[in-house]
């Protein structure tokens, strides 16, 4: 490779919008479900000692995870992260986690910030490589949403 050739493959995934918005960021693939309450601090860092990615920052990342877990207070934690600009850029989930959707809906109503949440089929999640650059575009739920990956 000489560094100038077509060495970047672009791939597009289609999913279902759970909450509208557009975003771009580096993909963070969480290996286990995560509860935002008790699992993520006010700066957006994973503090759940049980979680394999303890210590990793979610801020500005396109976060893919199998599902939410645990506390229903995760709604308020997510809304506060969005308000204070410490939230992920977008969430990609393998199923509809209403706890997280509500957090995004309230942040939209209160602060007019749209953090997209996209539901992908579970088989798509393992194909989302950690560290890839992802562009997420989600229309109004439950319409289609796209996740475009640029692997580097």
């Amino acid at each position: 490779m000489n560094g100038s050739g077509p060495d970047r493959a672009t791939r597009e995934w289609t999913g279902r919008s759970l909450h509208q918005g557009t975003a771009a960021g580096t993909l963070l693939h969480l290996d286990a479900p995560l509860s935002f309450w008790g699992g993520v601090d006010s700066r957006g860092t994973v503090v759940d000692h049980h979680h394999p990615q303890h210590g990793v920052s979610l801020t500005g990342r396109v976060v893919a995870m199998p599902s939410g877990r645990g506390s229903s207070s995760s709604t308020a934690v997510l809304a506060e992260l969005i308000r204070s600009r410490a939230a992920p850029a977008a969430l990609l989930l393998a199923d509809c986690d209403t706890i997280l959707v509500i957090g995004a809906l309230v942040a939209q109503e209160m602060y007019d910030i749209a953090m997209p949440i996209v539901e992908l089929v579970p088989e798509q999640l393992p194909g989302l490589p950690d560290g890839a650059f992802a562009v997420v575009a989600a229309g109004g739920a439950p319409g289609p949403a796209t996740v475009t990956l640029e692997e580097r």
Partner: protein
Amino acid sequence: MSTVAPPALTAHEEAMLAGDEGPATALCMRLVVGVARANGAERLVEVESAHGDGCLYHGVAGLEFTERLVELGGRVRVRTTLNVGSLDLLHPGMVRADADLAGKGRRLMDAHVALGCEPTWSCAPYQTGHRPAAGSHVAWAESNAIAFVNSVLGARTDRYGDFLDLAAAVTGRVPFAGLHRSEARRAELVLDLSPVSRNLLDHDAAWPALGALLGERAGTRVAALTGLPGDLTDGGRTEDRLKALGATAASAGGVALFHVVGVTPEAPTLDAVVRPGARAVRVTNADLRAARDRLNTVTEGGLDAVSLGTPHFSVAEFAQLAAELADGPPFADSVAVYVSTSRGVLEQARELGYAQAVERAGGRILTDTCTYVTPVLDPRARTVMTNSGKWAWYAPANLGIDTVLGSLAECVASARSGRAVRDERVWA
């Protein structure tokens, strides 16, 4: 392409969405409909009650949302109890809140009361008189309360969180989805507990251990448990065991409903609840012990504190604690013992003399909040013993401490000796 996205709304619901019942109701209906669009509900369903969890301060967003509803003239239209807040309003010295938390935490609690919610301040509203009928639709938040109302009472709620709980209470509606639907309440996984020794199941620490195992195995799926003893009319013993099981399962996994065959209301038989093709897994003493071990960050050594009452202590648990304390020595000076409970249960525990027995032994009773969600413990505390799997799950991250899980009797013995004392033989 369909022209109108679900859910289909009744004329009354359309009117609420259009603002005919005020701007707070319209805002709440936008949230309910927004969730219905995401989760694919074809319609909404009316709820008979709600339990709100938004009164614990998590930051400005929650406070501004709740105060916005108050400003817009919002009012709950169904019975709505409240989960814990950040402050103990009855014992103001117990929480070491800074001015910011004290001010905003109190404003948040006050805003919920201004919306017409009941100031119960408890994660166990089901043990202070809020017990929805089996089969009724409700909108409950807080993961242990959700697991209990679905599993032990047989009412129907999906997993609601902050904001949607209030939106449901204000509109009286939720999306007809998830665990409101009969087909979603069937078990996809069966855990067979018959290999576990009865001796171990008589040890109360077995139940949070079972909750941890259930959470790990089930994730968010519905499970049926077979081979467990229990009788929900036995004066609270079975109920408190299932409370501990469900709270831990909801923390370690995302369990919102479990069936105990022959014990919980929807599960007279396995056939009544199991989905065809559900996988059955046998559970042994060794499995429970391994699950228990994952709830500890240390196993022995000196203790700084003991925390009981997560979820909030019941009257039956107070009776058990008072019996353990009878005529025994007080707690060691080096160990701070906390019991978290609701103001409703404390009133009864005081009438019955149980609260005084705890205080005579040197214990401190906390109401309206809980020791792992707000600053109560001495910041120098390093190692804390608890009988709660939920507390053991969250406290290391929330408080930066080590935890040891034990039975109520082991917690009492350890608080007296100043060191973690556990009987390992029962787990063999």
